[in-house]
């Protein structure tokens, strides 16, 4: 998860990480982690949120970007069984895909690779 700033709009943080900044904390599905100071006027303090969620931060100073690791707050890859569908997936023509189009259907999502 790449950021070019440590202060990002809450919507951007949610879209990138799957964690929404709410009054009760950083939330994903039904899981919320208290994170006082993470949200201020619609802007997420990435360092505070990352610290509360147990997300390591890697900084490349030469290129001015930060990379966030997955949250360790729950100790497992999945903080919740509610599926988080990424908006970054594309088809072979480079178009985005709306997982909402599959709502109401059982899905097997299979990972493969050309390598």
């Amino acid at each position: 998860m790449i950021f070019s700033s440590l202060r990002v709009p809450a919507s951007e943080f949610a879209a990138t990480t799957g964690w929404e900044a709410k009054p009760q904390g950083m939330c994903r599905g039904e899981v919320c982690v208290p994170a006082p100071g993470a949200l201020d006027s619609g802007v997420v303090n990435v360092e505070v949120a990352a610290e509360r969620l147990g997300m390591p931060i890697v900084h490349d100073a030469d290129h001015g970007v930060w990379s966030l690791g997955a949250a360790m707050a729950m100790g497992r890859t999945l903080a919740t069984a509610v599926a988080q569908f990424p908006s970054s997936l594309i088809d072979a023509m480079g178009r985005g895909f709306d997982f909402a189009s599959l709502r109401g259907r059982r899905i097997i999502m299979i990972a493969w690779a050309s390598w």
Partner: protein
Amino acid sequence: MVTVALDIDPAHAKPWIDAASPTHPSLIDTTHCTNDLFGFINVPMAVWIDENGVLVRPAEQASIERSPARDMQIPDGIPDRLKQMMTEVKSIPDDSAAYRAALLDWVRNGSASPYAMTPDEVVEASRPMSHDSSLAGACFAMGEHLNRTVGHDAAVPYWRRAHALDPDNWTYKRQAWTLVTTPEGATENDLMQGPNDVYSGNWLDDVLAAGGGSNYYVRAKLEPPK
């Protein structure tokens, strides 16, 4: 069915998708974000998601038919490394028949299937997230970003670090390796991923270090949980 190619360059996955002419959504994950979101650390792996968008099985090895590679004869006279690779491939456990049967049971029976886990069971069965594995993800993502925006050489130090932090993550390794072992101009990515001048690891030596082909995958636990 939704397929997701873990390829940082969509051009690598596209020919395979085009050749398959799939009727299902065939997507490409250029940042390997599905590793963080679902736990795909090797391929093929799959998650099952019910009609309400809730996972009923965590990321597991997902084969539905026995690979011909398992039954291949190892020819005489081939180089030792190739012979060893084929030996390890043949030693990878084959759960395809059981996985196929479980999948079909869930397709037919939904939440009544004994193979559909509860949400708590799915979370508990998902891969433990350690500081090192999470940091590896951050490093891999940084490498992918720099590979795309700056160039391959900028990515290498981060990918080396990712490999060291999370040696069980084969997607980080194989994605990086293939970029240096695939000859320029090749029409397909190299699958052998042998010793190279950029990374200390390669497929065969890393598989052997992990205990061989029998330890290569996160096997599906198909004993009915209920």
